[in-house]
């Protein structure tokens, strides 16, 4: 057993070598290399490194540690605190206005079909300057079914608009659109969402059943054909004899009647149901914008049947009463802590700035969203308003970074300062959401995109 041990040893040696001097081995001459040094690197909420640095090569973080030195040719930046860029989970920045307001979108519509890099450049520039580096954008944000949402980077201004993930979620609204007049109407909308998910599930089951039946039929046909091929010579001889006799007797010869089981037919393709199938089997989360308790009750009861469904509530003005169930079923709630005046729509009547705090206390996974459009720029301000009404600062920071990334499947790209993630970082001169802190540098893909303009 000589081999494995030496192999083991060499592996250990290599990895330490790698760790010891990672910079020299993997840097090619024309790579873009940035090293960020900071007194405090917040890897993710709850885990910080003192006097550490982050190495970014060609836009990706390659190493985070306390013992890295800058490879030659690398751009070196220093600051007090480094953390991951903020993420806005409820926005439509970068999407063409008409498509956001379209109430006729369907589950198989896609947000990436309606990107508008030209007129949203200014909005994305402001969002970047305030630290929001990626947004979950959604077309048909007030429609019954909004279709596939997408994660968009705010890293560029005009021209192109980088997409982090083009099918981040499906979206629906209950009790928000103009049509929701009374409670029965709103509850029926909740049931419609459940039915739609059910139809996706059934569609998947139909296809699975069809595939099984098809396989069984093909196997049976194959054996039948093998038998027919074997008996062919005999059948041909019999047939020639019969033809000959019929010819002699002047009767008309007619072939033997061949019958076989009918081939099962595939279910009719339905793009809408196919999209919903991915929701039903938990491949992508389903964001439902819902506020009042009547329809919340209908939605939560209706979705109990789908064990793999990843439901996310957006808005949730009256979700406090369902906190235990939401925590139990690990359903996150996206809160929009805006200072609304007394004159506001009916579904926001009980809007309360401390909702985030009270939900967090009951272990509900709380996210914070800016509610769309140019408000993404004010996400940190909304978060500090939520902190001002009782939400723990660390909880708020998690809501803007790791929890947002994990809920919508982009944790491998953004949300934390770890190896392999995108080099989207903020360099600040204080605690991320503390009011007096300002952003000294914003890095997107390792490139400095906006030096600080005013506070964060």
């Amino acid at each position, binding site marked *: 057993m000589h081999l494995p041990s030496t192999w083991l040893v060499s592996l250990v040696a290599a990895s330490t070598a790698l760790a010891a001097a990672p910079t020299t081995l993997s840097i090619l001459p024309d790579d873009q290399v940035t090293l960020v040094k900071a007194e405090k690197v917040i890897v993710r909420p709850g885990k910080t490194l003192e006097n550490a640095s982050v190495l970014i090569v060609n836009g990706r973080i390659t190493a985070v540690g306390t013992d890295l030195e800058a490879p030659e040719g690398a751009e070196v930046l220093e600051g007090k605190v480094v953390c991951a860029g903020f993420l806005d989970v409820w926005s439509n920045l970068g999407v063409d206005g008409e498509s956001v307001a379209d109430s006729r979108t369907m589950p198989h519509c896609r947000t990436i079909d309606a990107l508008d890099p030209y007129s949203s450049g200014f909005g994305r520039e402001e969002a970047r300057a305030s630290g929001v580096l990626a947004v979950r954008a959604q077309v048909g944000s007030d429609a019954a079914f909004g279709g596939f949402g997408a994660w968009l980077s705010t890293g560029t201004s005009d021209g192109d608009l980088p997409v982090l993930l083009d099918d981040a979620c499906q979206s629906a609204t209950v009790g928000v659109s103009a049509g929701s007049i009374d409670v029965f109407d709103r509850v029926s909308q909740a049931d419609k969402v459940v039915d739609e998910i059910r139809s996706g599930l059934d569609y998947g089951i139909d296809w699975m059943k069809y595939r099984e039946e098809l396989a069984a039929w093909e196997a049976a046909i194959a054996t039948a054909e093998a038998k027919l091929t074997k008996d062919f010579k005999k059948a041909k001889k019999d047939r020639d004899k019969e033809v000959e006799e019929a010819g002699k007797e002047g009767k008309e010869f007619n072939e033997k009647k061949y019958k076989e089981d009918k081939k099962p037919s595939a279910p009719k393709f339905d793009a809408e149901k196919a999209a919903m199938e991915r929701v039903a089997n938990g491949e992508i989360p389903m964001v439902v914008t819902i506020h009042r308790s009547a329809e919340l009750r209908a939605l939560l009861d209706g979705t109990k049947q789908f064990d793999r469904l990843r439901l996310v509530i957006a808005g949730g003005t009256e979700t406090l009463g369902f906190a235990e169930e939401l925590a139990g079923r690990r359903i996150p709630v996206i809160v929009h802590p805006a200072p609304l005046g007394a004159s506001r729509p009916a579904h926001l009547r009980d809007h309360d700035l401390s909702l985030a705090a009270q939900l967090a206390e009951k272990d509900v996974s709380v996210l914070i969203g800016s509610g769309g459009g140019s408000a993404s720029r004010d996400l940190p301000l909304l978060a500090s308003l939520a902190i001002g009404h009782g939400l723990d*600062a660390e909880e708020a920071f998690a809501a803007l970074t790791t929890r947002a990334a994990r809920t919508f499947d982009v944790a491998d790209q953004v949300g934390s300062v770890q190896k392999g993630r995108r080099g989207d970082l903020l360099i600040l001169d204080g605690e991320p959401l503390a009011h*007096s802190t300002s952003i000294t540098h914003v890095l997107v893909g390792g490139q400095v995109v906006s030096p600080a303009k005013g506070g964060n």
Partner: protein
Amino acid sequence: MLATTTLALAALLCGGPSAGDSFALRATRVHVGDGTVLENAIVLVKDGKIVDVGQGVAFDKDVPLIEHDGDLSAGLVALRDYAGIGAEGADSTRAVMDAADLRYAFDSDHPDMARLAESGITTVVLAPGSGSNVVAGMPVVVKPTVRVLRAKGSLHVDLSASGTSFNRYPSSYAGVLEVLEERFAAGEGAFGELKAGRMTVMLEAESRAETSRALDFASRHKLRGYLVDSQRAGELAAKVKASGLGVAVGPFAIGGDRKEVESAVSLAKAGVPIGFALDTPTNAPAMLRLSAATAMRAGLDRDAAFKALTSGAAALAGVGDKVGAVRAGMEADLVLWTGDPVDPTSRAVAVYIDGDLVHEAPETDEEDED
């Protein structure tokens, strides 16, 4: 920290200082109002007035002492709001309503008033609604839920497009100026007070052209007071400074136009006295401090923002001698905060108006929040 404050307050509540009694407040940071912050200072209050402020203030032992681990500052001042007025403030049957006094529209029990007090706003200037009047009436300075602080102190004059009307005189900017020049020439009632400088003006102008014309009008008639609703006044900062008028800026909506915020900052940098406006019920009272926070993010320094929330606004509203600072002789409108009043992450824990406790934050069971 919070536990200690509430204990003391409980003792106080049953006794409850009536206006005649006196009590003392000690806080870890007292924002006097002119930029200085006293550590662990005491504020002595008697008969609704501040008697003494300082670290070593002496007071006899039967005067109750309230300890507060956090910040203390004067109550905030909003330069323009419609709290509780609703449709009462817009009587557009006649162009000039110079004798209309908004004091009679002030409803101290309206829920809007309580919301203002809860968010630490102890003085607010109620303005007439934006009907189509050239002069809509006399704004009134009130202490929410308590009393009128100053009436007949200023006159609302609208030189913006909303001052004209479609179906009665005046229907044009020229007509508006014609009416005003006539009234100033006659010099009766409020117009006489304005000319004599005994009244200030709340001058409404929106576009830059309207603002420029309003500044010319104010200089022509040597008026004092401040501009409202002029989102781009910052681009005429030098002219505003020369006119001696102040400006009520904001409220800056979430996701609103960036230029409006930058205009407010350039006004402050040019030395123009500014204060913040509210527009209840469209926005919540928290918008006052949030506007200050947004302005700070766009470059306004902290002390200028705090001054605009307190003493600066009080001076513009004509009540700078009574409220807006923590000094002996001022009225005891005080607020206890969890942190720096300008920081949106801090909250009003207790609010006093004229020395009476009008609001106290509900018990939050989790122990501390930092």
